[in-house]
């Protein structure tokens, strides 16, 4: 066997991983391009060309292409950008939580963010009342996302506080606190659903299935700030997460400030997921499985797993959204349903293949 190859593979950057980041970037770019170009509202090549010229300020938009430009620029572009950012956030946060909890079944739901966001969103739907009609004003447009974001972050901070004793955040206590916070939020959500009327219950159901249909340009800077930046910061924590692969004590022995890393990672993941969920509703599967897909293909080095999960998560959500708006057109499938339908069988296939090929 080739020893020097194995050594090179371990330091400073695994060789098989070199391909991952360009590959992931290319995949994300391709998914985004497809997301903008394809969909139930057909856009002609000349319409695309005209819209591009207009976007670049090179030519006035001819009136006959105004619809194409609106579909590309108003409906699809913010939707694809939001999907890429939010998918990246879910992927990176999922990888971070799995690394932090050293558990392949961990996902952002574990730190209470989904349950907290859902509770607040349901409260907004039930108590927001008339603000959610078709005539909702600015308050109605931002109330639900704001509530969901605050609820998700609040639940996580509450849980982190409960899980920290004497300045030390114990993962085991954190997990139990998470179970308690999730159960409490779930119970309160149930109480609100009991109070909700039939229409609100259906609103709640659709919210929990996720959708990018409400994506608007006004949301892009918010998501860039609250999802994009925390995701990048999580990727910058790759080395401490690598140290945690050995265990918390070993990570400390390797010079990691374990407590700071834990708290920092939990807050960053909570911000990224809560902000994403705030605009789309719950989107399952991406945070749980995308990191595994990266690991199965490229190993456990977080320098690859974190950015890889971000890129793949973004690509997956953009593609899932493309399918969500195309498959049932002119209606739309909930995107959370598509991510699960798309990813779960693929994941199972990978697992089976790995099992057949011997332990990894």
């Amino acid at each position: 066997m080739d020893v020097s190859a194995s050594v090179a593979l371990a330091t400073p950057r695994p060789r098989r991983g070199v391909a991952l980041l360009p590959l992931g970037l290319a995949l994300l770019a391709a998914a985004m391009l497809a997301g903008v170009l394809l969909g139930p509202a057909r856009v002609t090549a000349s319409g695309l060309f005209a819209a591009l010229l207009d976007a670049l300020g090179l030519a006035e938009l001819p009136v006959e292409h105004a619809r194409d430009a609106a579909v590309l620029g108003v409906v699809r572009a913010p939707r694809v950008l939001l999907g890429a950012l939010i998918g990246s956030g879910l992927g990176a946060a999922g990888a971070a939580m799995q690394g932090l909890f050293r558990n392949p079944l961990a996902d952002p739901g574990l730190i209470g963010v989904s349950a907290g966001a859902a509770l607040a969103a349901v409260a907004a739907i039930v108590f927001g009342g008339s603000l959610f009609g078709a005539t909702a004003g600015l308050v109605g447009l931002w109330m639900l996302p704001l509530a969901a974001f605050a609820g998700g972050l609040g639940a996580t901070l509450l849980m982190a506080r409960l899980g920290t004793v004497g300045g030390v955040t114990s993962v085991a206590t954190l997990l139990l606190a998470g179970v308690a916070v999730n159960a409490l939020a779930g119970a309160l959500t149930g109480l609100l659903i009991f109070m909700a009327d039939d229409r609100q219950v259906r609103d709640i159901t659709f919210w929990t299935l996720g959708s990018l249909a409400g994506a608007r340009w006004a949301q892009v800077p918010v998501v860039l700030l609250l999802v994009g930046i925390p995701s990048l910061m999580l990727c910058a924590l790759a080395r401490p997460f690598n140290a945690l692969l050995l265990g918390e004590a070993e990570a400390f022995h390797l010079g990691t400030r374990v407590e700071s890393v834990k708290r920092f990672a939990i807050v960053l993941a909570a911000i990224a997921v809560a902000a994403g969920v705030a605009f789309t509703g719950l989107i399952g599967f991406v945070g749980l499985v995308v990191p595994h897909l990266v690991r199965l293909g490229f190993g456990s080095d977080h320098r690859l797993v974190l950015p890889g999960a971000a890129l793949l998560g973004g690509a997956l959500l953009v593609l899932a959204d493309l399918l969500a708006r195309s498959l049932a057109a002119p209606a739309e499938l909930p995107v959370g349903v598509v991510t699960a339908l798309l990813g779960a069988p693929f994941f199972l296939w990978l697992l089976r293949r790995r099992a057949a090929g011997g332990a990894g």
Partner: protein
Amino acid sequence: MIAAEGLTIRAGRRRLLCGVTLQLLPGEVLAVVGPNGAGKSTLLRALSGELRPDAGAVMFEGQDLASWSPAALARRRAVVSQHVALAFPMVAAEVVALGRLPWHGTPAAAQDEAAVAEALSAAGVLRLAGQPHGTLSGGERQRVQVARALAQLHGAPGPAALLLDEPTASLDVKHGAALLALLRRLARQGLAVLVVLHDLNEAAFVADRVAVLADSRLVMFGTPQEVLRPALLGDVYGIPFRATGGVLAPAFAG
């Protein structure tokens, strides 16, 4: 190198360590022995900086251990724990490469590959480099951890310390002896080695000095000849000992 002064550690109301004073010197192997629950692992964790003393102090190179930044400390001190379970699969060389994490951002990071290769070969696991960690035996994993610790200390800017918690526990006689020989060799090269051991004969074989813990206290500290005497050990372990042909063993009835 590392000096404990009246080191006391409590867990709630229970005292895990009480007033321990000892020094670990560069170039020596210091073995820590004692009955189960005597506080051996606690001592190792306190000397590594993982536990803060409730009373007394631990000095590293004449400076309070707490004043060392984790990264600077990690470049001078490595720890091999009893059991390491990986969160996600890696090959052995990747595990060893994790030892280079504290060097990230320093000029010495340029020697990462050399450090990993050297450590793999010094710990005798070069042929395992490409093996998935999950397929290694307990002994092989232990040696991979030693290699990881050596990679971590490679290029240390001054005397370095290696602390090991019962590294021979899962090794057979041959591999155990090989590991102890490796520790001796490392000490000869100037490393300060502290090793928690269960087997008194291993301690006698490898150590320059032996520290005996009993009931949270340091009861003896000296050369193996001074410390590992049947009469003293009998008091510590509460059963009679005898030395037969240079081997220390409990004197069982019958």
